[in-house]
C-alpha cells in the first residue's frame, strides 16, 4: 500500500545502522493460534518481530518454536529478555538469544516489579553497559523517564523504548509530555514499547514524534487480531503523517473558518 507518508518527506526508520520500511514493530506472544499470528503480523506491515527465549519443552511437540511459523528471511527477529528480573539473568538470555538468532540486536528488559512489570532501571543500565561491551545492539525497554533515557543513551543503547503504559495493560499513552521530552532530548531512536491498546493510542503516540511503536497484546488480545493489525498500521502511518504535517495551535476560543465579511444586512 503506497501511503501519503512514504510519498511525503519522511525518512526511513533507522536503528543500530539498519533501516526498516515500517515504524510499527510487533510481538509474537499470546495469540490464540499461530495462523492468526502470522496473518496479523502480515497485516501490520511490520518488519521487526520480537521473540522470547525459553526452554524447549521436551515432553511436547516441537512446533511451539516460533521459527516454525515465522520466516527469519522475511522478518527481522528481535530477541527479548522478557521475564528477567536481574541484570545477570537478562545478560544470560541476551547471549542465548544472539546465539539462537540472526543478529546482534536485543530488546533488553530487566523487570523490577511483578505486579506492574515496570523496569528496574538500575539493572537495565548495568545490563546495557555489559551487553554494549560485548557488541550487542541494545534496545532498552525503559520507563518514560528522561534521566534514565539519557543514561541509557550514554551507556550505548541504540534505541530507548519508553513505555506508553504497563505491559499488557492497554491503557494507552499515559504521559505524552515525558515521551515527547525524551524524543526531543535523545539522539538515538525512541520507540514506544508497551501499553498501546487501540489504534487511537498508536496514532496519538506517533503524533508525539517518536520513531516507532512496538506492540503485542493490542493485536493478540483484540477480538479480530488481523483487523486490529491493519488498523494499527494505518494509525501509525496517520500519526506519523500528522506529526510531520505539524498540528495547528490549540486555542481556547473559536476562530471562524468562513469570512466574517460579506454577510447580508
Amino acid at each position: 500500500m503506497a501511503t501519503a507518508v512514504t510519498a511525503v518527506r519522511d525518512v526511513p526508520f533507522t536503528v543500530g545502522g539498519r533501516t526498516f520500511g515500517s515504524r510499527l514493530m510487533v510481538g509474537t506472544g499470546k495469540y490464540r493460534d499461530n495462523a492468526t499470528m502470522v496473518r496479523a503480523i502480515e497485516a501490520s506491515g511490520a518488519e521487526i518481530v520480537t521473540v522470547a527465549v525459553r526452554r524447549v519443552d521436551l515432553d511436547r511437540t516441537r512446533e511451539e518454536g516460533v521459527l516454525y511459523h515465522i520466516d527469519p528471511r522475511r522478518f527481522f527477529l528481535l530477541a527479548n529478555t522478557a521475564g528477567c528480573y536481574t541484570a545477570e539473568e537478562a545478560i544470560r538470555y541476551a547471549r542465548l538469544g544472539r546465539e539462537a538468532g540472526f543478529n546482534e540486536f536485543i530488546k533488553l528488559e530487566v523487570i523490577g516489579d511483578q505486579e506492574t512489570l515496570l523496569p528496574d532501571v538500575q539493572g537495565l543500565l548495568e545490563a546495557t553497559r555489559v551487553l554494549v561491551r560485548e557488541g550487542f545492539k541494545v534496545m532498552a525497554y525503559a520507563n518514560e523517564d528522561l534521566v534514565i533515557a539519557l543514561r541509557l543513551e550514554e551507556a550505548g543503547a541504540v534505541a530507548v523504548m519508553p513505555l506508553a503504559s504497563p505491559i499488557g495493560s492497554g491503557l494507552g499513552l499515559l504521559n505524552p509530555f515525558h515521551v515527547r521530552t525524551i524524543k526531543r532530548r535523545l539522539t538515538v531512536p525512541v520507540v514506544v514499547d508497551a501499553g498501546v491498546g487501540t489504534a487511537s493510542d498508536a496514532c496519538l503516540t506517533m503524533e508525539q514524534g517518536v520513531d516507532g511503536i512496538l506492540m503485542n497484546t493490542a493485536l493478540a488480545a483484540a477480538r479480530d487480531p488481523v483487523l486490529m493489525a491493519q488498523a494499527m498500521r494505518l494509525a501509525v502511518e496517520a500519526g506519523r503523517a500528522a506529526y510531520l504535517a505539524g498540528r495547528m495551535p490549540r486555542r481556547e476560543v473559536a476562530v471562524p473558518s468562513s469570512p466574517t465579511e460579506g454577510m447580508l444586512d
Partner: protein
Amino acid sequence: MTQTTTETIEVVVNGSPRRLPRDATLLEVLAALELDPRLVVVEHNRRIVRRPELGHVRVAPGDAIELVHFVGGG
C-alpha cells in the same frame, strides 16, 4: 539402539534429571531428543556451545544442560 548395553549417566536437562549414554556428545543428545541443532541453542554448564562444537563436547555426570529456542513473545 544396539543390543550392547551402554552405560548411562545422570545429567540435568532443562531442569529435569535425565539418563544419557556415558560420553555422548551434545550433538548426540540433541539427536536422541529429536531436536534440530539449527533451531536449538545449547548451554552446557552455563557456557553456550556453538553449533560446530556440539559434536566435540561430551557430557559428564551431573552436567547441567539447557536447551532453548525462540517462542512467541513481546
